[in-house]
């Protein structure tokens, strides 16, 4: 079960969120730093709630555009910046479902996109876990990183990856195995 952390101005990455937010509120060119810090978390939040990658990307884009446009309205009230982004994401999910329903006459029940405080705490923790994992993927040796991206992002088969890397299928499976072993050991005792 996720443990609710008290809202803190310092994120799990040790970066002072409040300073970053205030810097971006004064100079939008500094929004980059917030984007880098929160991209993975917002993407995970959305991609774990929609069925396809294209929708997750559209919604992620929408969230950051809205966040940029409305950044001046964000005020520190003891709520982490990620929770504010998740609120925007939650609204975008609801809008997206309404649009899809209109276009395709979706008959099933809509997903519950209501954001509750207890959900937010769990979402923050889970999304931070995934964000940490994705950052570790970036630090894998180049060939392992490529195998992981081709396998999980592009969803290529081992045979296709082997042909592209000019390696045997057995070698690619070993690279995949080692990459996951490395990620697991670096994630330590973290659990989503």
């Amino acid at each position: 079960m996720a443990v609710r952390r008290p809202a803190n101005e310092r994120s799990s990455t040790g970066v002072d969120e409040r300073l970053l937010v205030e810097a971006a509120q004064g100079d939008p060119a500094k929004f980059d730093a917030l984007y880098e810090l929160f991209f993975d978390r917002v993407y995970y939040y959305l991609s774990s709630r929609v069925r396809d990658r294209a929708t997750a990307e559209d919604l992620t884009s929408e969230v950051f555009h809205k966040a940029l446009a409305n950044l001046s309205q964000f005020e520190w009230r003891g709520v982490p910046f990620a929770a504010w982004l998740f609120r925007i994401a939650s609204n975008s999910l609801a809008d997206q479902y309404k649009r899809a329903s209109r276009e395709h006459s979706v008959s099933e029940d809509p997903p519950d996109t209501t954001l509750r405080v207890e959900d937010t705490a769990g979402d923050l923790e889970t999304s931070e876990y995934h964000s940490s994992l994705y950052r570790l993927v970036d630090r894998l040796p180049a060939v392992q990183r490529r195998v992981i991206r081709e396998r999980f992002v592009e969803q290529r088969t081992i045979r296709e990856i082997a042909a592209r890397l000019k390696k045997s299928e057995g070698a690619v499976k070993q690279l995949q195995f080692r990459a996951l072993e490395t990620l697991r050991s670096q994630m330590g005792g973290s659990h989503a």
Partner: protein
Amino acid sequence: MPKRSPAEQLDQAISALLTSGPAVSKTGLIPSVARLMPIAQALRNLPRPDFKGSLKSDLQRRISMSESAAPSRGPVKFKDFRRPNFPNIAPYFLVPGAPKFIDFLISAFEGTERIRVPRPDGAIMHAEVAIGNSVIELGDANEQYPQRSMTTHLYVPDADASYARAIRAGATGVYAPTDDHPSGDRWGEAKDPFGNTWYIATRRSQVSGAEGFLTVQPYLHLRDAHNMIPFAESALGAKATGIHKSPDGLVMHATIEIAGATFEIDEAQGKVQPGAAYLHVYVPDTDAVYAQAIRAGAIGVTPPSNAPYGDRAAAIKDPFGNIWFLATYLSSGQQ
């Protein structure tokens, strides 16, 4: 039966995970594999690095546009007139056999299909294929909007590799990429099986500026191309940059920017005959631009209305015959 290695067993479990979703049983997995499955499951949501980069560029472009337009620094207000994750100008291809055209874009230019909206008869009403940081839109040609042969300029990391891929996918080479092109870029040309022309280029000159580095730019060959510049400026709020003219005043090349995205024009001459294109452009106010365009000499094709997909949409035909699908994204509180 030979015993499977942990690497093989892991791959089989990952294959099941990727095809069947997260509810894959860990039963039967050896412990060294079972303990890796939570990591594999978490990697299913790994974002595309290209997407992260292109969204960042998109946000930066928007910030710089806002700053250059602002008379003084203060609270920044953006008008969300563009559909998120959509370049401002997209060529809209209407072809017979649109599904095959999608296949071509995927195999020739490593495109990714984003949306496909079929008609009841199986034809495609609307589809979108992402290429690099841009989007191409398409549908099956119909009576109202028949096929047009269009020209598109692609900026790719490796023009030679992209050209070769396009040929393998069924395009006909006009000329292979060369460094001798007047632009200074490495540049080749191919024709696809649907009659469209593709300029496949890799930038050699790191000229940034208004034209930016979008992968896809519509390219219009026009008769009396110089007349497009005042039309685009007055009708579409565009800005022309890098205008190169011949001694007798013909536009040899110009880049025209509308809210951060660009299209290119030149004078049609010799073997290059004028053609008309379909273009989709997001503008801050569809109604105002529609009225401006008609005042500037365009013909109204479809008056502004709220489209069911969340845009305020209209269509005009410019004095060169190009059809412009105008749109303002409404899902930012403007509906």
